[in-house]
């Protein structure tokens, strides 16, 4: 995607965001004291929505003009290999999966499983990934659970097995 298209998308997103903020904040109640209207909860978000709308229009219009004026512009597409997309997606997934995993199997096992998978995906040999993610899990456990006494979930499955 070239810069012009990116800016145009940015502009459109800003317009949508500002319209949403404007409409949503208009549902906020008025603030009146002894019959006198004062700047209430909707006052400031409305101003911000107005500013963002202006910038959104600016980016959309300038993007459109640039596109029309220079149709031959370099449409260099950012080509991402499947592997790169998988890397990004798995990094996001490891955050999303962390919560259900940690609730089920506890912190240490979660970090070992998700950590070694992520490391392997990021070009670290699998056996090294397991070693390093185990060290990482123990380090995090020592710092947060033992040193700072933060109750980290031990996992439903683990507590069931221990009992």
């Amino acid at each position: 995607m070239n810069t012009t298209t990116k800016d145009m998308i940015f502009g459109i997103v800003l317009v949508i965001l500002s319209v949403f903020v404007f409409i949503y904040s208009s549902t906020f109640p008025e603030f009146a004291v002894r019959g006198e209207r004062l700047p209430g909860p909707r006052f400031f978000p409305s101003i911000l929505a107005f500013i963002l709308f202006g910038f959104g229009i600016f980016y959309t219009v300038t993007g459109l003009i640039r596109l029309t004026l220079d149709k031959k512009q370099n449409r260099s597409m950012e080509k991402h290999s499947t592997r790169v997309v998988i890397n990004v997606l798995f990094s996001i997934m490891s955050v999303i999966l962390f919560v259900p995993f940690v609730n089920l199997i506890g912190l240490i096992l979660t970090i070992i499983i998700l950590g070694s998978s992520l490391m392997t995906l990021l070009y670290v040999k699998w056996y090294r990934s397991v070693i390093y993610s185990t060290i990482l899990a123990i380090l995090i456990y020592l710092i947060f659970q033992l040193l700072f006494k933060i109750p980290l979930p031990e996992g439903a499955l683990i507590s069931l097995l221990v009992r």
Partner: protein
Amino acid sequence: MNQFLQVISPDVIIPLILAMVFGVFVGAIPGLTATMGVALIIPITYYMNPLAGLAMVLGVSFTAIFAGDIPATFLRIPGTPASGAATLDGFELSKKGKGSLALTLDLLCSSLGGLIGVFLLIMVAPPMAKFALKFTNFEYFWLGIFGLSMAAVLSKGNTIKGFVSAVIGVLISTIGIDVTTGYPRFTFGITELMDGVSFIPAMIGLFGLSEVLKRVQLGSENLELPAIKDKSKLSIKEAFSSIGKHIFTLIRGSFIGTFTGALPGAGADIAAWVSYGVEKNISRDKNIGKGSLRGVIAPTSANNAAIGGTWIPALVFGVPGDSITAIVLGAMLMYGLRPGPLIFTESRELVNQLFIIAILVQILLIPIGWLGIKTFSLILRLRSGIVLTAVVFFSIIGAYAIRNSFFDIYIMLIFGLIGYCLEKISVPLAPMILGLILGPMIEDNLRVGLIKTKGNFGPFLSRPISLILFIMIILILAGPQFFSLMKKNRPK
């Protein structure tokens, strides 16, 4: 004396040293920034007493900025953005087999520059705080806007996008219960959002996770770091003699660094470039850029001095000087401390102890930095995949640990994705944090001011300090455009 003894007690000094070691690690790994280091360490400090926590934050920020110069010198890869300017001459010296001299100079100049920055902070901050007591809602409103404008203008040529980023940050800050009326805004019925967006998870997401997402896109070759080439010995004696020869460069760099750092929105990276640029312009040394010692001394003394500078507006007005102090201000509020002019009277002891710690950090920087340089080869042996995975899990646990809330992990993820997408379209992230921090200050003071004046905006401009601040904002926003227009229209 009692304050000094409290500072050097094991409860404070051990976490400080550990934080400095962590700072070396964060700074020396390209891609991990000092801001990220501070964001990752805040959750750990949350469970400590404020003094130890702030000591750790100070330790990480100063050390990481220095450590960023290590890969900058040996590998031509700045470890942190603040080391960008140090790369030029440092790497050239490395190519000539003088990499170790350059790094020893970096270390000493960082320590001395930091020391000058801290002394300037000690001298400037208290009288400024007395002056700041004259500020009312009207002045604080403009001060907040001033902070945002500076952040936007200094967004490296992305002024408009910087401003938009700041406005988005301010908008996010409106999420939660409205202080004046108690009405929940943009919470969509989610109880966790009633207190607003948790600041630390948001920071960790913006700077930690988004950086990981950015870097995992690189192919296997780009994720690898090249090996060290310079194996010459470190020489303190030679470095001291070089500093002696260029003492004015060091002093100049430190002063420039402190004052640039004190501008809201500037920070260590801009300070280093400004200092480097000034040195290049005023010095007769034509070797700058080709391996000059001046080219090493000027930016490295400036970037560490800038940290002292960034604390001036942070402590005096509660306005962060850069993204690091923005995070620190959020942390101070969590500790129950209220940055601003009153902190100098209400928590004078803590302020004094902070100053002592800042000086101590500069002294400790020399042995710890020395060890950092020595162990750099070990750190570099770790593959990026390992480091990035560690950052992901420290980010997750860091976000969770603040309130023991799984919801904050998702907040961190959302901000990570926002940061990743915004960086893809060249929108700077630092103004967003400033917006997040300054948003409540701007809104509260605007609304309280308008309530006081019954909706009349006049007093916002008629009071002398307000007017000066307003004119400064106009000059900052319009100045660069005006000068470039003048330059274009000048007859040839």
